[in-house]
């Protein structure tokens, strides 16, 4: 970029800069820097009574802080932790939290206010100036450092003995790989895990609310029901969260005439359709079902799916339709899955295809 360097004299002058051309202390220049204005006294500097008042104010603030700290300790000791008080306009709040917070706040704030008031009214307010020095080293220092470095490099003979240099570089390049390998056991490999859920042929659809298997007649038009696969229990099951994160199901009943998508109709049972509850965008449990429009909305990013049309995306950032679960009825009249989802549920990923 050196060909594009701009000579310094072409740049406008900085105020007060040494190389600034115009700045002379001439009377002729109306824009010249008049210099620091003379110091003016504050009332506290000339009136001892005012200064005394300031002193008392500062001391008062520090005293209030002490009292507030005592108040903090008293609140901690005497207020029951579960006591609730009504304070307008805050509402029913914890007396302990309110008392501790306010006393602590006052204790701290008064220390600060006292110190600042002290500084503002009693400490000297005469403006002082510090000189600045260029950050850059002088040319001599620069030359010395460069020479020292060259000397050091020469003494190390790194330039003369490339074998040492190259093997060292090789060793330093390789050694971080150990660290990389150590990270391998952070997690298992994806394999086909994102493609499968607990759903399988014959798994009954169990109502999340009652933990009972669902029958088709339980599902009325306009209702919304959530289901999980039979055998997935929350209590004492370490894998519950991971399994429900994929298997959560949303069940609604539509009028078969209203179903526009042919495959959706095929995979439904008497108009009952079961869709994955996990949004195909980034995985929020989507379930804001509008029963008149048959749209479901995701509360996280507002992807909207039309449940009467194969759950295709009609608005928002999701990229593909919600996966549908093929359902039927088993011999005892309960709703059952006729297989796993045919495509991965949840957010899309590179290997999804």
């Amino acid at each position, binding site marked *: 970029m050196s060909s594009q360097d701009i000579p310094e004299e072409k740049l406008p002058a900085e105020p007060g800069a040494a190389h600034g051309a115009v700045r002379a202390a001439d009377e002729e220049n109306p824009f010249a820097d008049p210099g620091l204005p003379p110091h*003016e*006294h*504050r*009332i*506290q*500097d*000339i*009136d001892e009574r005012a200064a005394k008042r300031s002193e008392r104010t500062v001391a008062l603030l520090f005293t209030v802080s002490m009292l507030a700290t005592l108040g903090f300790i008293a609140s901690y000791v005497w207020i029951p932790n579960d006591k*609730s008080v009504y304070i*307008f*306009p*805050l*509402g*029913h*709040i*914890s007396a302990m*939290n*309110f008392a501790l*917070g306010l006393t602590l706040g006052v204790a701290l704030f008064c220390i600060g206010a006292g110190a*600042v008031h002290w500084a*503002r*009214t009693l400490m000297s*307010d005469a403006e002082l100036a510090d000189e600045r020095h260029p950050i850059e080293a002088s040319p001599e220092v620069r030359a010395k450092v460069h020479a020292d470095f060259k000397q050091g490099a020469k003494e190390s003979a790194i330039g003369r003995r490339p074998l040492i240099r190259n093997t060292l570089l090789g060793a330093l390049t390789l050694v971080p790989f150990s660290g990389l390998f150590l990270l391998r056991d952070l997690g298992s490999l994806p394999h086909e895990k994102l493609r499968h859920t607990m759903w399988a042929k014959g798994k009954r659809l169990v*109502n*999340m*609310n*009652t933990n009972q298997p*669902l029958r088709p*007649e*339980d*599902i*009325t038009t*306009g*209702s*919304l*029901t*959530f289901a999980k696969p039979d055998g997935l229990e929350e209590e004492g099951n370490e894998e519950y969260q991971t399994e429900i994160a994929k298997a959560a199901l949303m069940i*609604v009943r539509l009028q078969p005439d209203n179903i526009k998508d042919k495959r959706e109709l095929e995979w439904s049972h008497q108009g009952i359709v079961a869709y994955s509850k996990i949004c195909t965008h980034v995985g929020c*449990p*989507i*379930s*804001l*079902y*509008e*029963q*008149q*429009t048959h*749209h479901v*909305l995701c*509360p996280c990013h*507002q992807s*909207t799916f039309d449940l009467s049309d194969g759950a295709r995306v009609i*608005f928002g950032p999701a990229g593909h339709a919600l996966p549908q679960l093929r359902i039927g009825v088993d011999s005892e009249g309960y709703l059952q899955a006729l297989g796993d989802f045919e495509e991965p549920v949840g957010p899309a990923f590179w290997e999804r295809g």
Partner: protein
Amino acid sequence: MKKLSARRRHPLAAVVVLLLALAATGGLYTAFAPASKAKADESAQSLTIEEGKKLYEVGCASCHGAGGQGTTDGPSLVGVGAAAVDFQVGTGRMPAQQPGAQVPRKKVIYTQAEIDQLAAYIASLGAGPSVPTKNQYSPEGADIAKGGELFRTNCAQCHNFTGKGGALTHGKFAPDLEGVQPKHIYEAMQTGPQNMPSFPDTVMPEKAKKDIIGYLNAVNSDQTKNPGGLELGGLGPVSEGLFAWIFGLGALVVVAVWVAARTAKAKKS
């Protein structure tokens, strides 16, 4: 209590408008009209379907049709049941004032006796859920924790963690549930008003509904404890962030101005 919650909301809302310099949208902001709670007439008079029919013909038939069969302006009411009528008319949603994305809750214009008569008439048109009894919807004896779990599974996605309401598509919304009578919450779950899906007893048993009402009563009433202080609308990080900017950083900037300002000079003219 309604007044209180409106006031509590007010400063925040006002600041939102100020900060975001959205004077233009200010007009859109309307405080929740306090729904006057029609004192339920406990001693229900003997309901006659005839009287309900008369009320229906005056107030409802223009949209729902003379026999409740529905028109282009309003759905059929055959089979919606007394619970739906009690909910829609008892919360002031019906009769609807104007067409829009959604019919909102407003001032109730019928007395409870009249509502009961209307409900009886509609119920006579076709079988549907009946108005629940106090025993069914009273929060007494509910398992609040179970209700919380049910609420988060079935309701929170639209109504927010503690029932503060939320947005749906194209201007529709799930309303705030504070101050809604338990009976109406029960009826809403039973009948699925407007775009809300229903949660019939077959999939959400009576007890579960009662538990949900118990939970809402615990976390979203004027008696709800917010130990940490101002609830900030219970809306989560958005209102918290606004508060942090305005009252946190704002206050600190004011303090910084004071710290850095020069003290007044004695001979300032």
